[in-house]
């Protein structure tokens, strides 16, 4: 599933981000290798000093997330996703309220700064959906 600010942006949040954070149920899923191969990229397993990474021009924008602060397990959070149309497919995206919960939990300065925008977006989306 897509998490972080890219997930928020997909849902309508006026935010900026450097990358697309991907949270996988299982990094050993053969589908990941298959997709990477299609864009001439590779998976770099974690070491003592580096997290799991993607390597290659086709995946420069993507980061692997292995843990989400303040959230439940992947399986639990999979219930808190929304389906977003992207091209010919649909992709699971972490819901905005869970992104807010996660950003609150990290306690990082940059996450605290974006919280008001995410909260404003959440209320706007809720009000907007009442009318449409």
């Amino acid at each position: 599933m897509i998490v972080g600010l890219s997930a928020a942006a997909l849902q309508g949040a006026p935010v900026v981000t450097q990358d697309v954070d991907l949270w996988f149920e299982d990094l050993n899923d053969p589908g990941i290798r298959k997709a990477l191969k299609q864009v001439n990229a590779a998976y770099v397993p974690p070491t003592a000093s580096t997290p799991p990474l993607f390597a290659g021009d086709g995946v420069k924008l993507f980061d692997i997330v292995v843990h989400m602060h303040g959230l439940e397990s992947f399986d639990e959070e999979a219930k808190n996703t929304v389906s977003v149309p992207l091209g010919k497919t649909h992709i699971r995206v972490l819901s905005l309220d869970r992104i807010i919960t996660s950003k609150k939990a990290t306690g990082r300065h940059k996450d605290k700064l974006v919280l008001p925008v995410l909260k404003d977006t959440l209320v706007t989306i809720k009000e907007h959906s009442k009318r449409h």
Partner: protein
Amino acid sequence: MKISSAKVNKLCKEKKLNLNRMLADAGVSRNAYYSLLRKESILPKSITAIANYLEVSPAEFLESEHSNVITTKKRYKQAEDIHNRHKWADMDNIVHTLLLLEEPPIERLRRALLRGRQFNFQQ
């Protein structure tokens, strides 16, 4: 010039809107709407007088607002309504969210990434 209820009903139907809902969203009371329907002319007398003098229809010299202007005003009104119900929310954030909701998700993401990569606030 008068209002054609048939045309209004047709437009509502095309936009899948109920008349009452449309009036409520537009901020027009039912009384005001039905009062307008009964009028032979909804234009000010001065407009009618000019049109009569020039022997043309008022439509010849009246300009309607550009559709972009109408959409922008409508969006701003919706943002104000949301802000009135949630005073703590920032008006700019509401307006920008409404703008982004008009775009497909991929375009929202593209914009977020473009801006994020153009400006590195860490530097």
